[in-house]
Structure formats: structure tokens, C-alpha cells
């Protein structure tokens, strides 16, 4: 019996060395064949859909914020907190994501403006996270390389549960910004942020901290919690939707493989969640073809679904599917959910996916 090596999720450790040595780092990934003409049409940029969605987004944010101020001190404030929290603490994640890719709008500065606003809402350093996300796309769920693995193995279920409250992320994100504002980047951060970009990361952190300090000052001056409820704290009370949708992207699936069909999940979702999430429920499609804007992902899905595992019909279905896998990973961290391909799909390439660290699979 062989003993599997434990995963080291540091980006400068043993798993990093192994990923580079085995060719998993910066590898060539599987892509479904799509004719150039069709792909070119899907990749086309347009400002229209994102301008429409952003106007709705901003109006809803301002409207719910006004409701919070107006009804503060009464129970009527609760629905406004609910809406504002989700818009601020959850939908900002998909805006950060799409605008970071530069695909939401055709016009570059529009992507940049929304990217920076959304990064602030999420307490994410816009420079650091641009680079971490580039790494996530290069080395998706490659242990020791991917800086954005949400649930590591063996899974810490308490931590995963607390993620829905935003407490852990808040406790991580704010001190991280403070540390960066004082000019210190961690070794992991330095491993994926190029040296020439690192001073920009420090400057960005200082701007974010300055706004939070100003918000606290206003709250003290007004002797009111409202400024903090509107800026900063939604990262706590409004994060649950981002976590509910985002955890499903990769949880329970294979790691250390170079086929997004094995490590990424597409889930059908209701229209409200899709608006909040900007269609990132089509996540296999997004990872395979990150050039395709969010509004074209449903079309891309129709075009390539013959080559992908069948999408989960709902979030509930996906969580029911993954829960027993997580429980089993508590004892056997190599265990994962290997998703079935339809008969029309090209098979998984065994030589890429049969490494010892992904030896056990549930079919």
C-alpha cells in the first residue's frame, strides 16, 4: 500500500516543486473543439449588456442604501439590508471577476472603473487579485500553484460553513490590506505578483485603508453605525450568496488535473442568482474559454455541452452531490468526484489525470 503525500497548499512549498517537476504547472489544458468563426462571434465584445446590468446594479445599490438610511432603527430596515448586503458583498465578486478579465465591457476604462469599485467592496487588493486570478486560470486547482483554492483537502467543514457568514474572509481580507498598506507582501503574494507590479499593490492597499479610516471617522463624527453598515460591514452580512454560488465552482472535484471538465462544475441557476453571479454558473465554459463575455456563456454552453459532464440542474442538487464527497475526504483526502461524460464527449486523457495524488475517484 502506498501512502499518498499530503497536500501543501503554500505557493512556495513541496507541492509547488512537484507541480513544476511533473509538468502540471503552466500546462496545456484540454479544450473542446470550436470552429474559429463560432468562437470569434462568441468572443465579440459589447458595452450594451454590461452597461444595462451596471445601471440596474447601481440603482439597486443606491435604492437599498437609501432604504437602510430611511428605515434605520425599525424592522423595515431588514429587507433593505438583505438586498444591499447581497449586492455589495456578493454581486461585487462577479463584477470584479468579469471586469478583471476585461470581458464585461468592450471599453477598457469601463472594465477598469467597475473592477476597482468591486475590488474595494470585496476588500480585495485589485493588483494582487488580478495576478492571483491569472494564476488561477493558468493552474486551476493545481495544488501549490493556484492561489484561489476555496476548500482545501482534507476539507475544514467548520471553516467552509463559516465562510457563508463572511467572518473568516473579513478576518483575512482586512488584516491583509493593512499589512500590504504598510508595504509588506507575503512570500505567496510575491510568487505570483511580478516585482514591477508589487509597489502598485502597496499603493492600492493604502487607498483602500484610507477609505475605511475615513468611513470610521465619519461614523464617529455622526455617532452612527450607518456609514459602517454601508461601507465595509456588507462584506460580512452580504457574502452568503457569493459563497453559495462560488463554492460550487470546484469543490469536491479533482485537483492536479489539466482538464476543466474534471475540476470545474457548471450548475444551472435561477435568473436572480445568475444576475448576481453574472452567469459564472457556466464555469467549465468560462475556464475553457475565458475570452467569452458573461452574456455569451449560455450560447457557449449550448455549443459545447455535448463534450462536457452534464450540468447540475440546481445548486441544491450540486450541494447534495458534493456533501458525501466532502465527508469522505475527511478520512481519505485523495477521494474526489469524477464526473461522467456523455457518450458524445471526447474521453478524459488518462495519462494526464492518473497521477498518484488523485488516485481515488467516485464515479
Amino acid at each position, binding site marked *: 500500500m502506498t501512502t499518498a503525500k499530503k497536500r501543501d497548499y503554500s505557493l512556495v512549498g513541496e507541492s509547488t516543486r512537484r507541480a513544476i517537476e511533473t509538468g502540471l504547472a*503552466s500546462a496545456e489544458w484540454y479544450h473542446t473543439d470550436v470552429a474559429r468563426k463560432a*468562437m*470569434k462571434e462568441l*468572443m*465579440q*465584445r459589447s458595452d450594451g449588456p454590461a452597461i444595462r446590468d451596471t445601471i440596474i446594479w447601481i440603482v439597486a445599490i443606491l435604492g437599498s442604501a437609501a432604504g437602510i438610511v430611511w428605515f434605520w432603527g425599525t424592522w423595515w430596515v431588514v429587507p433593505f439590508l438583505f438586498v444591499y448586503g447581497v449586492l455589495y458583498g456578493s454581486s461585487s465578486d462577479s463584477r470584479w471577476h468579469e471586469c478583471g*478579465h*476585461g*470581458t464585461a465591457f*468592450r471599453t*477598457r476604462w469601463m472594465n477598469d472603473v467597475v473592477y476597482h469599485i468591486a475590488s474595494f467592496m470585496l476588500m480585495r487588493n485589485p*493588483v494582487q487579485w*488580478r*495576478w492571483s486570478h*491569472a494564476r488561477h*486560470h*493558468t493552474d486551476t486547482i493545481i495544488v501549490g500553484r493556484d492561489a484561489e483554492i476555496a476548500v482545501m483537502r482534507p476539507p475544514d467543514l467548520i471553516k467552509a460553513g463559516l465562510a457563508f457568514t463572511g467572518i473568516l474572509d473579513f478576518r483575512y481580507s482586512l488584516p491583509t490590506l493593512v499589512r500590504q498598506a504598510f508595504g509588506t507582501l507575503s512570500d505567496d503574494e510575491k510568487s505570483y505578483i*511580478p516585482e*514591477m*507590479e508589487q509597489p502598485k499593490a502597496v499603493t492600492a492597499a493604502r487607498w483602500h485603508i484610507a477609505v475605511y479610516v475615513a468611513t470610521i471617522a465619519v461614523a464617529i463624527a455622526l455617532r452612527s453605525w450607518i456609514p459602517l453598515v454601508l461601507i465595509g460591514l456588507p462584506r460580512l452580512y452580504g457574502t452568503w450568496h457569493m459563497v453559495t454560488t462560488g463554492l460550487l465552482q470546484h469543490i469536491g472535484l479533482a485537483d492536479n488535473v489539466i482538464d476543466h471538465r474534471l475540476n470545474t462544475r457548471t450548475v444551472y441557476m435561477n435568473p436572480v442568482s445568475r444576475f448576481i453571479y453574472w452567469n459564472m454558473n457556466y464555469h467549465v465554459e468560462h475556464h475553457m*474559454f*475565458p*475570452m467569452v463575455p458573461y452574456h455569451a456563456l449560455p450560447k457557449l454552453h449550448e455549443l459545447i455541452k455535448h463534450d462536457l459532464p452534464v450540468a447540475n440542474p440546481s445548486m441544491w442538487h450540486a450541494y447534495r452531490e458534493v456533501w458525501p464527497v466532502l465527508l469522505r475526504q475527511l478520512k481519505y483526502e485523495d477521494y474526489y468526484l469524477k464526473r461522467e461524460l456523455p457518450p458524445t464527449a471526447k474521453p478524459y486523457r488518462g495519462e494526464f489525470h492518473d497521477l498518484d495524488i488523485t488516485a481515488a475517484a467516485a464515479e
Partner: protein
Amino acid sequence: MAEWVEACAVEDVDEEDVIRFDHGGRSFAIYRSPDDAFFATDGFCTHEKAHLADGLVMDDIIECPKHNGRFNYKTGQAKGAPVCVNLKTYPVKVEAGKVMIDIG
């Protein structure tokens, strides 16, 4: 020293599009701009090894298919993170319906 090689026929590249051209163990990207001019650059993104011919041409910009890094394909200029290193460009001429690039 100039070394002109035939890369493709004019009609092989759609307007506002790009194709791949491999020669002598090297890979190039051949562009046709919206105003019907031809340009050539190294084939691979300077950020990571992704071929630009799978990317998207918009006006003067080629966007890498892997991380959406953008270059001006006429000048090779990198337009911001995650691309920081400029792209090498090559002289191009069109002769008798053929696109020639100087890879020397």
C-alpha cells in the same frame, strides 16, 4: 539581414482577425486590421505560452486567449497587466496576393 518568407495568401485572413504561421521552428501571428492592412508579431503571448492566433482582434488590439492580456499588434506594445513585456513585431508586405513577413 532581411529574410522575407511567404506567410499566407491575403484571403486566408479575415478582416479584423489573426491566423497562425509557423516557420523554421518559430511561430508567428499574422493580423489583418479593420482598414485592410497586414501586420505580424511573435505568435506567443509574452506572459505565458498561449498562441495569440486563438485570441480576439479588436481594432489595433490583440487579446490573448488565456488571460486576456492585450497588445497593440501594430507596435507590439503591452497594454497592461497581466502582460508587461512588449511583443516583437515583424515587417510585412503584400506581393501578388501573398502576405510576406521579414523574419530576419
